[in-house]
């Protein structure tokens, strides 16, 4: 996992449309960040953001590659899928806007808070998407701020 430049990177795959398994990758990332001594404040934000992104993949894309990169000054989590894509990112970023199915709502998700939650927890958030091709979300957390 570690490379000579004191950075850590690890790949994960979200590969199931089964709600019961959703959240495994974000839990693994949370545990890894705890192992390497990241502060609890940042772990919580990273876990929430990754969990929301993971749920979006399970609900809409079914499969995605996740790349976790940790360097001395930041954590970056990139989630890249080849799902249906997002037709209107601006709308998707609005709280309450949702394209969720009845099944998703029964699972407790699909309230239209996922992408806004990710952005709120990240220090830097970028999203790009092409309908029919997929979506890439990058979530960055700076490690140079002191824990409150």
């Amino acid at each position, binding site marked *: 996992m570690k490379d000579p430049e004191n950075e850590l990177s690890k790949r994960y795959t979200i590969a199931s449309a089964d709600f019961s398994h959703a959240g495994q990758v974000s839990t693994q990332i949370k545990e890894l960040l705890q192992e390497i001594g990241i502060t*609890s404040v940042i772990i*919580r934000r990273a*876990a*929430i953001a990754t969990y929301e992104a993971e749920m979006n993949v399970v609900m809409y894309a079914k499969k995605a590659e996740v790349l976790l990169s940790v360097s001395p000054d930041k954590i970056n989590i990139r989630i890249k899928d080849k799902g249906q894509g997002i037709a209107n990112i601006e709308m998707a970023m609005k709280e309450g806007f949702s394209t969720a199915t009845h099944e998703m709502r029964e699972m407790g998700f699909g309230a239209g808070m996922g992408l806004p939650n990710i952005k709120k927890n990240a220090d830097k958030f970028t999203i790009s998407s092409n309908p029919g091709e997929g979506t890439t979300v990058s979530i960055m957390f700076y490690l140079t701020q002191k824990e409150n």
Partner: protein
Amino acid sequence: MKLRDIKKLLEAEVIWGEEHLDEEIIFAGGSDLMSDVLAFSKPGILLLTGLSNVQSVRTANIIEAKGIIYVRGKRPDTDGIKMARTLGIPILSTKFMMYKSCGILHGSGLPGVNDIEKTE
């Protein structure tokens, strides 16, 4: 108040985590929407929810909840109980509805998420 006191107030049964009943609970929140929970909770929350699937336990872990009270007599399935046990999250069930459960706890002096100072 202790989780034991909450169990008594809500006439709840312990599904898992009897050994956690002396845990001190500082505040609580109730929702069936996990995205709202992710957006509005704070670490240490006692989560009240009627959503009894495994994602309720996963969400509780992500938000660092102290425990889960399932309302409306709900109970998680075997996978949910196993996950709660693995993660060390006590889970209880009350037959009371969400409104009544939250009202009982708030009326007994347990603050909500917005009633407390930021804990971090």
